[in-house]
Each structure stands twice: as structure tokens, then as C-alpha cells.
């Protein structure tokens, strides 16, 4: 019997459980033990749900014995702490929700549990998913397993670090501007953000409703395919989820990339990109080309507008979405308020961190009378231009490939004083959110010992293309198998 369960991928673990090589209780105990010994160094978890996990593992073992094994029966995973989880602390990385026990399950949480998954805990994140380094979390930054002085990226940094460090085989994440793909790239994991509307947002604490999408962070594209098949689908509780058939994503992996038309965006390789990162991405493109993919240069003339557009639309929506945190019904409440205004001001002033406040202020400003047309309305127009760039590009290519992030992981504290530089981290990923497209990051090399990600974007509902391309690339390379030394 294999005792290095933590090094196996979700797909391998599923086969082992199926064969009876080990039980879900054994697997869960093994991983809880690793979390116990390693998370102090990483700070990837806000809450470890050991007791519940063991109970769920036991039930799943019983279900399997009774012949009722679900698709994910007994497989452990972690949830980003943005997903409401019934009777469990759901903090969204904020002091505001430091004591918030959710009375209900998010649709994603319910679906994964329904398929038999075992939840090990809730992972750390940038406060309300606002950040690209996990440093805005009220519960402290997450460390990158590849270099504990570095950021794992954000906002789904806890899930990414936990998966990279083999504390869990998979984690959920959310991606509003790159919050799954960028941390996946920075931690050498696989990150998938599906098409907007593919996965229900119900129970996922909203940051920017028109951009937020739930996805996964895993160690292989095959694992991402397995989880997406369970998470995807229409939800009558989310009006923006779309009733579109859910294909067999696992079946889509095995196709060939021969003849796949891969678009390479000229603007992706401009000044902002770190030279060594660019070289690693070029090498990855060469691997695709050598195996039958056809590379074509495509033009995205409005790419440079995506970050400013995003930083109008996302704050606008967040300023409204976060109004419900007022200290009246749940969440942080200031002590001994003098009056209503004092209750509001101090509850929100104390409950929210600096980056959240910055975005609420920005969003409030761009929606204000007299500024709405110049900012919000203009940004929505530019958003259409950016989407048009993609649609035009997809007339000639099946997938767009490039770097996920301009640099490998940066040192914690390096960019905290300069929000603009921090925001530029998401320059390659934000476009997919603005256009509602599926995007993915898979490991494609190392720069000075730190992982680099290859970013892929497909047309709407193109998850199968993404998964096939990434999976085939993973069959040709070993980057996704690399494990940080201290966590092997």
C-alpha cells in the first residue's frame, strides 16, 4: 500500500480508493496530519474542519462499501473561504466576517459534497477576493511553498499554496480578474476559470458579480476536468448561470492538438513581461508547435485598456455588493455605537481592510452622479471593445496562449505600497473576465526556482479545448509534477 498518498493527484487517488488500496478515512487522516505539520509555515488555511472531514470520509467509505460511491467519493479537497459552508466559519478573509458561521451551503459546496467529496478546510484568501498577493487577508498573508518569502499570488492564494504543498489534492477558487490563474501560475499548479455562467455563483460571496466565476486549482488538467464536471451546470438560484449542456470533460482530454490553431498575442510580449518568464512561455509554445499545433500571431489592440476598465467595473460592483456588511444583521459590529451613522461608520471602518476600502471608495466615486457616464458607462463600452478583440481573434484561432503573469512569484511586501504595480499583475488574465471567457493556467517552467504558468483562453464554452490543450501539454512536459522541496 502506498503511504505517499499526498503526492498523488486527484485522479490517481480516485483510482486507489476505487481499488481499495486505502480508505478515505486513511487518506483524510494523512492529509490532516500534513496540514497540522506544514500549515504553520504557509498559513494557507483559515479553518481546518478535521472532525467534519473525518465524519464525511467515514460516510464516503460506507457509501462505497454499499455500492453508492459518487463521482468524487471520498476525495479530499479544500474550499476557498469565499464559499458559504453550512455551520462552518466563512470569513472571506475579512475581519468583517471573522465570526460569520454560514447558515447555508453554496451551490458549489453542495454539488461537490453531493458527489462524495470530503472538505478538509477553508483556505485563506485576499480580503473579499480583492488582491493579487494574498496580503490583504485579515488572517495574514499566505506563503508560497516554493519560497516562503514569496507571495503565492491571489486572491485564491490559500487554495493554490495548499495544493502546491500537497496538503490537499485540489481546491476551489474564484476568479474575478485572475484570482485562480495567477496564483496557480505562481505556485506551479493548474488553475481553471470556466466561462461566466458555467458554474453557479450562489453562495459565493460576491466581489464583482459580472466578473466573478468559480473554478478549481489542481495538480493536473485531468483533475480539473473531473471537478468541473461536478461543479458545472445551471442553477435556478443564480439567474446569471446558463442552461448549457455539461459535456464529459474527462473524455475531452484525450483528443490530439494536431492542427490546433493557437493564437499568440503580440501585445503579451511587450515591455511589461519579465524576460525569463517570456522565454519559458516561448519554449512552451514551441512544444505545442512541435506537436502539431499551428501558431498564429493575433492582435489585441485594446489589451492595455483591460486593467483600467477592470478597475472601474469591479470596484463599482463591489461598492454596492459590500453595502450589506453594515453591522446590523451579521458580521462585525462596532461596540457601543452612539447612533446609526456611528454604527455604520465604525462597523465598516473596523471590519474592512485598506484595499477593500480603496475599492469601495473608487467604486462609489465612479457611480456617483456626474461621474457615471465618464467612468462606469465608458468602462462598459471599452469592455465591449475588449470582448470584440477576443471574438475577432477567435475567428482565426481555437485558443489564445501566453504568459499567465508578467513575473514569477514576488516577495511578500514588495508591492503592497504600490497598488498600480500590484494591479498590473493581472494584465494578461483580466481580459477573459471582462469578456466572460474560460481561461486556464498550467505550469510551463521555472525562473530562478519559481514556477511560471502558461495561460490559455478559449471562446465561450471552450473548456474542452482548454483542458485538451493543457492536458496534452502536460503529457509532453513534467513541469506540473514538480514539488517544492520542503513539501515533498
Amino acid at each position, binding site marked *: 500500500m502506498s503511504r505517499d498518498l499526498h503526492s498523488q493527484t486527484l485522479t490517481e487517488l480516485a483510482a486507489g480508493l476505487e481499488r481499495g488500496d486505502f480508505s478515505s478515512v486513511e487518506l483524510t487522516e494523512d492529509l490532516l496530519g500534513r496540514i497540522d505539520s506544514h500549515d504553520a509555515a504557509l498559513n494557507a488555511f483559515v479553518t481546518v474542519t478535521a472532525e467534519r472531514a473525518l465524519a464525511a470520509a467515514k460516510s464516503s467509505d460506507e457509501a462505497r462499501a454499499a455500492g453508492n460511491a459518487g463521482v468524487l467519493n471520498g476525495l479530499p479537497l479544500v474550499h476557498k473561504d469565499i464559499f458559504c459552508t453550512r455551520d462552518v466559519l466563512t470569513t472571506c478573509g475579512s475581519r468583517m466576517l471573522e465570526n460569520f458561521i454560514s447558515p447555508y451551503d453554496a451551490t458549489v459546496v453542495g454539488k461537490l459534497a453531493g458527489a462524495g467529496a470530503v472538505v478538509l478546510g477553508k483556505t485563506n484568501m485576499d480580503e473579499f477576493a480583492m488582491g493579487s498577493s494574498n496580503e490583504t487577508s485579515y488572517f495574514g498573508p499566505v506563503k508560497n511553498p516554493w519560497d516562503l518569502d514569496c507571495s503565492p499570488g491571489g486572491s485564491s492564494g490559500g487554495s493554490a499554496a495548499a495544493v502546491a504543498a500537497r496538503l490537499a489534492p485540489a481546491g476551489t477558487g474564484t476568479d474575478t480578474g485572475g484570482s485562480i490563474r495567477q496564483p496557480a501560475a505562481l505556485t506551479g499548479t493548474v488553475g481553471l476559470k470556466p466561462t461566466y455562467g458555467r458554474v453557479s455563483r450562489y*453562495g459565493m460571496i460576491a466581489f464583482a*458579480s459580472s466578473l466573478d466565476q468559480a473554478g478549481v486549482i489542481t495538480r493536473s488538467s485531468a483533475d480539473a476536468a473531473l471537478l468541473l464536471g461536478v461543479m458545472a451546470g445551471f442553477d435556478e438560484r443564480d439567474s446569471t448561470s446558463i442552461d448549457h449542456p455539461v459535456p464529459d470533460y474527462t473524455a475531452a482530454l484525450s483528443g490530439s492538438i494536431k492542427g490546433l490553431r493557437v493564437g499568440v498575442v503580440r501585445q503579451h510580449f511587450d515591455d511589461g513581461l519579465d524576460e525569463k518568464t517570456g522565454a519559458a512561455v516561448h519554449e512552451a509554445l514551441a512544444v505545442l508547435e512541435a506537436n502539431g499545433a499551428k501558431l498564429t500571431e493575433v492582435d489585441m489592440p485594446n489589451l492595455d485598456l483591460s486593467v483600467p476598465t477592470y478597475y472601474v467595473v469591479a470596484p463599482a460592483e463591489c461598492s454596492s455588493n459590500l*453595502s*450589506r456588511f453594515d453591522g*446590523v444583521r451579521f458580521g462585525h459590529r462596532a461596540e457601543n455605537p452612539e447612533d446609526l451613522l456611528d454604527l*455604520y461608520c465604525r462597523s465598516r471602518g473596523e471590519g474592512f481592510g485598506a484595499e477593500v476600502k480603496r475599492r469601495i471608495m473608487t467604486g462609489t466615486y465612479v*457611480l456617483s452622479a456626474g461621474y457615471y457616464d465618464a467612468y*462606469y458607462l465608458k468602462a462598459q463600452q471599452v469592455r465591449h471593445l475588449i470582448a470584440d478583440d477576443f471574438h475577432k481573434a477567435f475567428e482565426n484561432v481555437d485558443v489564445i496562449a501566453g504568459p499567465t503573469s508578467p513575473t514569477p512569484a514576488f516577495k511578500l511586501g514588495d508591492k503592497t505600497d504600490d497598488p498600480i504595480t500590484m494591479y498590473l499583475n493581472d494584465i494578461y488574465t483580466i481580459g477573459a473576465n471582462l469578456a466572460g471567457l474560460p481561461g486556464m493556467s498550467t505550469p510551463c517552467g521555472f525562473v530562478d526556482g519559481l514556477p511560471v504558468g502558461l495561460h490559455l483562453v478559449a471562446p465561450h464554452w471552450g473548456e474542452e479545448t482548454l483542458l485538451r490543450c493543457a492536458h496534452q501539454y502536460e503529457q509532453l512536459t513534467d513541469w506540473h509534477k514538480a514539488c517544492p522541496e520542503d513539501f515533498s
Partner: protein
Amino acid sequence: MSSAWEVVIGLEIHAQLATSSKIFSGASTAYGAEPNTQACLVDLGYPGVLPVLNEEVVRMATMFGLAVNATVATRSVFARKNYFYPDLPKGYQISQFELPIVEHGELFITDADGNEKRIGITRAHLEEDAGKSVHEGFEQSSGIDLNRTGTPLLEIVSEPDLRSAKEAIAYMRKIHTIVRYLGISDGNMQEGSFRCDANVSVRPRGQEELGTRAELKNLNSFRFIEKAINFEIERQIELIEDGGEVVQETRLYDSDKDETRSMRSKEEANDYRYFPDPDLLPVEIDAAYIEAVRETLPELPAAKQQRFVADYGLREDDAGILVAVRAFADFFEDVVASTQGKAQGVANFVIGDLAGALNRDGLDIEQSPVSAAALAALLDRIRDNTISGKIAKEVFEAMWAGEGTADEIIEAKGLRQITDSSAIEAIVDKVIEANPGQVAEYKAGKDKLIGFFVGQVMKETGGKANPGQVNQILKQKLG
């Protein structure tokens, strides 16, 4: 009121839509439950929850749009109106702003000169209601009841076409009648399902430009609306005539003191930061949907009134009274259908005696202890001269009290009319004999005294003599 001034009024009416569940959640909309027992996680604005539109409200708004000859938008958009208030859980109200579902409607009222007057309806949009702050029973704090949160509202905005409090009331009553006819609102003003804000301004007669307006809030009965508007008109005119200036502000009507007072000025007004709600898709309906809804429209009050005049020969104002409440008009028609009596007679009885009794006992027409069939049977007894109209009122009261059918009561109380001429003649003779003075006066030309003699005969017979016969015999005998 000085005739040098012209009054300009526009109304914003909030009609609660009669759905069983809320506009964006599955929670019940029933009135009067224990605080916070009818608010689900969506209503409470919990982290992560999302609104899902109750399609029933789209159908109801479409019905309203068609009923007021408006344009029903094939694409309308929900927006967020952002402001902080304890009874507004999400910190924003979901409403419609730039693209409402109904625009450019109209209806007609009768103005002071008796002419028909068109009142424009700018728009009607869908929105969710807020909760309620509760101050009674709390010290140093307030309670919040979120049962009402998410209750669907149709906000109906008129053009500033109304020129007096009376016109405003007439318009509001028409809207009230229409929403109840359509069955889209119960129109209950005590429970707040039908309420209104009024924008009131005055300007020198003949001036094109509108005066500065005040918005009156908290108007929850027809009587208060009229009083509040009239108070406000006088306040504004007095203010201007004394050299002052009206400021744009929201004023609250205090029914105890019968006055309006300033609540907040324009400077303190919120910037609501409206923007399209990204959690909801635009509402898209097609022409086929609108036509299908049109098929379900009932006969509307204006058409019904015309039909009552044309088919039943009713007086216009009586027809207007009958159609004001759909069930009332239906009751009238049911009676007409099963009696031999004339329709105008039925109308008189229904508007007079029946409505009076309902009003006295605080009942709705649906709760009337006298059914349409029972009333028809009573009116038949007038028609066939079994009883007089006057006795009929007595029989009706007995029926109301549950003493039996018209025939049973007439028999039991011996109320059958005396139609035997010889019996009436004997009583007439007796009355003439007993009142020689009046007879002399009558004969000297004081014709009006005939009433006195009729009265005396009726008194003798306990009101049971046939009035026509009494008149005839009296005139004969008095020569």
C-alpha cells in the same frame, strides 16, 4: 384659494402586487406575520445569496401597462438604488431606473367642470419593498422587521397633469380601481399595499415654467392625501405671497396635526448611484407574450361603465359608482339577471340600501349577508306590488339580520301591501273625517297638503297601503 395661482400635482403611487411569494425570493408575502418570520436568506441580504425574478410580477406589470394604454417594454432592466438604511438589508433596493417595463400610459378623469380630462402616466416600474423599522417597545435602539422586504411593488408615476387635490384623488381612485380589477393588487391602504407620494407645486396662472415642488410622503388614505395636498398648496401660496420662496424638499404629512413638515431638503438628498444590477438579466418579453396577456384582461371600469349606461339605461354617475369595485358591479349584474325589476331600480337599491348596510357594518360586498339572488327576490316583490319600496327597506333589514328570505319575512311580519280599494277607501274616509281643517285648506288651493293626507293613511296602515292607490283615492275624495 387664490385663483391667481395654478396648482400642479404629480403622483407616485406604490401598488403592492398580489403575488404569493416575493419578487426575488420564495418567501411568503402574507401580511401580519410575527416580525422576521417571513424573510429568507435572500431577503435578509446574506453574503452570497442572489435574487431570482418572480415571473408573475412581469405578467402583472404587463397587465397594468395594457390597461392604461401604455407601451410595455420588450426589454426592461433592473438597477440597484444604493443607500444605507437599517431596513434595507442589502444596502441597495432593486428597482428599475433607465428602462422601466411600462411607459407612456394614460387614463381619464372627470374634472371640476364635468369634462373628461386626460392624465398622462409617465412610467410604471417594478421594484422591491424595504422592511420596516420598529420604534415602539424599544429603548435606546430600534427594531427591524424584514417581513415586508422584497415584497413586489409597481411604482406608477403620473405626469404633472393634476390641477387640484380633487383631481389627484380622482386619478388615484381610478388607479386603485384598475389594479383591483386586474387582480394585481388588493389595494389595501391600511396595510400599506396602496400608498402614494405627491409632488406639489404652484405657479402664477398663465406661467409656463413649473414652480419649485415639495414631495409629500406618508400618504396612506384618500382623505389624508386630499388634506395634505390642500394644506401644502395653501402653505406654498402663503409663503410666496409673503415674499418667501418654496424650497425643494421632502415633507411628511402629520395626520394628527393636519400639516406637512420638512423631512429633508434636496441638499441632504442621497446620490443613489443607480447602475444595472449585474445579478439579474434584462427582462425580455416578446409581442406574443404581451398579446397573450392582453387576452386575459378583464373588462375595465371605463368600458363597463359605458356598457351599464348603454345596456341598462343607468345614469352615468350611478354606473360610475357601481363599477368602482369590480365585485360590486358583478353583484349588481347578478341581481339584474335574476329579477323582473328595472335595472335603475336595482342600481338605486344596491347603491343606497346595500352599500349603506355594508358600510355601516364594515363589510366588503363579498361578505354581504344578502346574496344577489335573495336581493333579486326582494325586488321582485316590489315589482309585483306585494310590498312598497318603503316596506322593502324594512324587509331588507330583516334579511340582513338573517331572519329569512324576503317572502318568509313578508309573511311572518304581515307586511303584504293593502291593495283592496274598499279597505283603502275606508281608511281615507277616516282620515278626511279626522282632519277637517286640513281638508278645508287643501280645498282652498294648498295642494301640497296631499302629502300630509298620504302620510296619515300610511300611518293608519302601518305603511302597507299601496301608495299609488292611496294617492288616487285621496284625490278623488278630496275632489
